[in-house]
């Protein structure tokens, strides 16, 4: 091998790795957004929300509806989708999920196991219900939220560039995670959510109404899921039954990063993103998913509480 050819090869392998790290990180930011809501509702009310992925898709379809009526950029739909999703989440928790929770089962004199199992079944059913409603309204055509930035890229060097949209979403994701962190640590309501997650039985002694606080938690979870849905809709096409694939990403991220920490979700998302991209680069596109699942399996085998849980 000539020196030149060797240099060329070295250059490309460096580019491959840089590209993997960069794209993986960028993807990780949005994986974190996909998963943080799931982690939060599990952390606060032990809710394993199997409809989480479908909520993400609902966010994307809400943007479709808005764009039908309003001549705005898909970005601005966020300002409407986020509050709508928050309200849906709050109401859903209070009228449905609070009545099948661990606490509700205890009030009925049933074992806490019912309270763990019932919401899993209820959200499973809810997910199926949601996707069929979406199918009924929007049919199975693949949709996308059209936008002018879809094909723009940021060029870092001749052979290294990242999608502008993905980069914006990464930034937006970080902003949302920071806002969530501030909300949970600096506001009375945010501290109440964390308090109820630490000790639901004693929180009422602080004047905290746990039913309300759980409503806030699912509201926030769904608001962020909705925002993620809008972003996903701008990057790729989506269909009514796409929810479960995002649920899987969310579970993976949560398993890797550990529950109940915002930083954990971000790092978990980034690790999953990097692993997928590098696996794809070296072993072909079909290895992307396999690589991600291998990482999840490794974490489950060696550090089942997640890499970043305290």
């Amino acid at each position, binding site marked *: 091998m000539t020196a030149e050819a060797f240099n060329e090869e070295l250059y490309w392998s460096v580019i491959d790795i840089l590209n993997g790290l960069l794209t993986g990180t960028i993807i990780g930011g949005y994986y974190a957004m996909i998963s943080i809501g799931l982690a939060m509702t599990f952390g606060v009310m032990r809710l394993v929300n199997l409809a989480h992925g479908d909520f993400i898709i609902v966010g994307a379809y809400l943007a479709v509806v808005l764009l039908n009526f309003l001549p705005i950029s898909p970005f601005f739909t966020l300002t409407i989708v986020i509050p709508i999703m928050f309200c849906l989440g709050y109401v859903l928790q209070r009228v449905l999920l609070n009545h099948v929770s661990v606490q509700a089962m*205890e*009030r009925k004199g049933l074992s806490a196991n019912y309270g763990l199992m019932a919401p899993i079944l209820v959200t499973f059913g809810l997910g199926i219900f949601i996707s069929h409603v979406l199918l009924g309204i929007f049919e199975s055509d693949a949709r996308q939220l059209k936008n002018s930035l879809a094909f723009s890229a940021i060029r870092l060097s001749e052979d290294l560039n990242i999608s502008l949209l993905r980069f914006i979403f990464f930034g937006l994701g970080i902003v949302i995670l920071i806002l969530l962190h501030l909300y949970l640590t600096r506001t*009375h309501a945010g501290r109440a959510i*964390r*308090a109820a997650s630490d000790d639901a039985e004693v929180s*009422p*002694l*602080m004047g*905290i109404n746990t039913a309300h606080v759980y409503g806030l938690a699912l509201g926030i979870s769904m608001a962020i899921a909705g925002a993620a849905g809008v972003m996903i809709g701008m990057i790729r096409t989506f269909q009514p039954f796409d929810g479960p694939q995002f649920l899987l990403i969310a579970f993976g991220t949560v398993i890797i990063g550990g529950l109940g920490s915002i930083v954990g979700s971000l790092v978990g998302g980034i690790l999953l993103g990097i692993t997928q991209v590098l696996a794809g680069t070296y072993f072909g596109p079909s290895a992307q998913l396999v690589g991600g699942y291998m990482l999840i399996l490794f974490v489950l085998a060696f550090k089942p509480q997640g890499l970043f849980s305290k």
Partner: protein
Amino acid sequence: MSISEHKRGFFAEEGRGGKRPLLTVSELSAYYGELRALFDVEFQVMPGEVLAIIGANGAGKSTLLKSMVGMMNRGKTAHTTGSIDMRGRRLDQLTTEKIVDAGVTMVPEGRRLFPRLTVEENLLTGAYLPRCREASEDKLVEMLDMFPRFAERRTQIVSQMSGGEQQMVAVARALMSDPQVVLFDELSLGLAPAIVDDIYEKVQQINQAGVTCIVIEQDMKRALRVSNHVLVMLEGAIVLEGDPKDLNEDQVSSAYFGSEIGRASA
């Protein structure tokens, strides 16, 4: 004279010492599912006093305090009958949040701090009620003044603190809601005597500031020393009550252990 004071109707209008009671508990019974833990308990709480409740393990002391803050209203698993009246307001019909808003709170058995929150966050959570929020930062400063033991550790996660420090945080957290009545369930549980002395000094300080205190205390001597009025419980009922100055130790211990003398005199 003191022994039959708890008998129904004796002080219907006027409480002990001619004062109007702050809390009147009547025919209070409590159930854990099928199990009955309180049997028609009746007593009054006078404003500004320290009321001590003593009794053997399982006598129903914690159940009584939990009933008073609405924590026994959990549907089928736990419920109460009877009434708890606070100056015309029926506390037994309110949720825990509303009772705390009305000015009655509890420092629960085993402290029950929020383990993943810092000292400061635990305290601020105590000021969650809308009526407390505006003054919460001032109140926080006041508490850090009052409890210098954890003042310089305000940003520490509470689960890393010693039991005594945690108990102090639990007391301070309860005070953050600006209560009129605080119920303390076994403040001394698992703590060294010197620290318990410290904590009871704080209770005295709180009481002098006008807060009515109800304490459950396993140490009979301490209970008699710190209180103006004592209730002795046995098997879910009050078997003796009175001013600690008027009660002799034999009387109290026979009531406590449920010996024949104790039963007969009640």
